């Protein structure tokens, strides 16, 4: 739906430096990724109207929420924003249902209780309705916060480090739930995180932020296949991320076959059913380049491709090679020496070799 597109321009030199400009359409998950203190939360707060930067233009569909040039500022309670706060910010004196009902003011009084029950059921908390936040686990609180944010029927959903306070197992389940939500909910979703795993699992688009400034932005697949992002290389390591579908399980071999736009990849079996859509990350430093496919290796993954770009960082002795494997742009980090020896240059035909244990399936 074009009328729910969120567009955001924020600029100010101080006290919190901000210089960002992005848009997010319904169905997309824009991850804002950067170190702590880079201004990520301030961006979300500015969208919600909780913070007023010196220059702001925030539009949701046809509505203008902030326009400093035009003197427009809608207070937070007039913006249809669903906000999941970092520590959830539940109302401690209200039950789970009470928390959700608080955000149902736009509904007729008689409907609110049943609507709150529906929303809590949707996040698997039917039997926790009458509990107060103190009586809920971290993951349960997070889901109440999510139900409360959805209760408002928001035109945009904002998630501030939503998994920071829960343990790994719960985090995975919550990520799945949010991913499912993205597919059903017709609103833009903006996710702020300093954990790259969240980005890989959930984002469709990525904005990399450092000290309030946009370093790079684009679709996840594009940014992940760019060889020239030293910031990303230093922060989390380069590596292509792509979507794949589980095409076959080899239980006896302990492997799973994933089909992607460019071939198949074998990865360690993770108890995934056939047909499951997954995301695969191939760390660039784990990719070996060869001029021919060598026989007699333990390796499962060998793809033929063509070099599409070579990026040599002046301040590093490594070279990042981007290679087209079918529709996929794969990144490989190799030494300058290897580039010279194999005569790696754009257009060269090569084989990329990757151990299956190096493949991250998320």
């Amino acid at each position, binding site marked *: 739906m074009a009328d729910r597109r969120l567009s955001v321009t924020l600029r100010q030199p101080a006290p919190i430096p901000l210089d960002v400009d992005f848009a997010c359409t319904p169905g997309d998950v824009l991850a804002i990724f950067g170190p702590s203190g880079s201004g990520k939360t301030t961006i979300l*707060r500015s969208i*919600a*109207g*909780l913070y007023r930067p010196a220059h702001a233009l925030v539009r949701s569909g046809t509505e203008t929420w902030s326009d400093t040039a035009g003197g427009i500022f809608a*207070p*937070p*309670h007039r*913006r249809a*924003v*669903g*906000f999941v*706060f*970092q*520590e959830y*910010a*539940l*109302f*401690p*004196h209200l039950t789970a249902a009470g928390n959700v009902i*608080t*955000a149902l*003011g*736009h509904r007729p009084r008689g409907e609110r209780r049943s609507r709150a029950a529906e929303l809590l059921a949707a996040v698997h908390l039917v039997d926790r309705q009458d509990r*107060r*936040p*103190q*009586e809920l686990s971290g993951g349960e609180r997070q889901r109440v916060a999510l139900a*409360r*944010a959805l*209760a*408002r029927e928001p035109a945009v959903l904002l998630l501030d480090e939503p998994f920071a306070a829960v343990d790994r197992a719960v985090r995975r389940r919550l990520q799945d739930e949010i991913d499912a939500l993205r597919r059903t909910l017709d609103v833009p979703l903006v996710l702020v995180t300093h954990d790259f795993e969240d980005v890989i699992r959930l984002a469709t688009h990525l904005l990399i932020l450092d000290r309030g400034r946009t370093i790079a932005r684009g679709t996840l697949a594009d940014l992940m296949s760019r060889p020239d992002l030293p910031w990303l290389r230093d922060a989390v390591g380069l590596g292509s991320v792509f979507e794949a579908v589980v095409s076959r399980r080899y239980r006896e071999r302990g492997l799973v076959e994933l089909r992607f736009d460019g071939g198949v990849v074998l990865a360690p079996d993770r108890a995934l059913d056939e047909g499951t859509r997954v995301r695969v990350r191939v760390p660039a430093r784990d990719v070996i380049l060869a001029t021919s496919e060598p026989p007699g290796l333990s390796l499962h993954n060998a793809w033929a491709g063509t070099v599409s770009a070579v990026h040599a960082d002046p301040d590093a002795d490594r070279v990042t090679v981007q290679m087209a494997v079918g529709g996929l742009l794969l990144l490989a980090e190799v030494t300058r020496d290897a580039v010279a020896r194999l005569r790696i240059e754009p257009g060269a035909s090569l084989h990329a070799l990757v151990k299956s244990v190096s493949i991250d399936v998320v």
Partner: protein
Amino acid sequence: MDWEALRVSLVLGSGTVALLLPLGIWFGRLLAVREFRGKLLVEALVTVPLVLPPTVLGFYLLVAFGARSPLGRAFQAIAGQALPFSFQGLLLASAIANIPFVVQPIQRGFEAIPLDVRDAAACCGLTPWQRFVRIEAPLAWPGILSAVILTFAHTLGEFGVVLMVGGNLPGETRTLSVAIYDRMQAFDDRGAGVMAASLLAIAVATLVATTALARRAGRRRG
């Protein structure tokens, strides 16, 4: 037992609470959630009645209430009577003396609410007034409650300011604590003892009630 004095004390105590509470909630919340220039100075001024000897405070209030001050003249013109040595004057003085007892606990109460929780209320679509009624006031409740108790108890026990501003007029400005002093001066140890005991009983009863209420509020919150 001076029943008149007890009545004056109780009316003065509840009157002070009634007069100060709305103001204290507004101002305490303002100090808790807003940052502004000179906030430190304002907070210091709020505390002044707490550190000033009651007689000094009483003296200045008496001057401010007097016929030569604009306030005193204005009150005289409107009410047709003078502020000093009247119950109205005493009530006003008591309210001023109790400002820190109301503002500080309420300010702490509102300060204890995390910013995110206030923001979440706004993001739930609540108007500022709804936020105050449904989220902030219930959460600041322990602070508001202790403001009420402190003010009431402090007013019952106030002596210096009462004597300076109110004098010792039976049924008008003679409070229980002044009456006790009066009885002692007259060597009526028994009378003083009875009244002292009733003040003690009121103080204990108030504290018990507060603790019970606070505990119930605590349970409500889990």
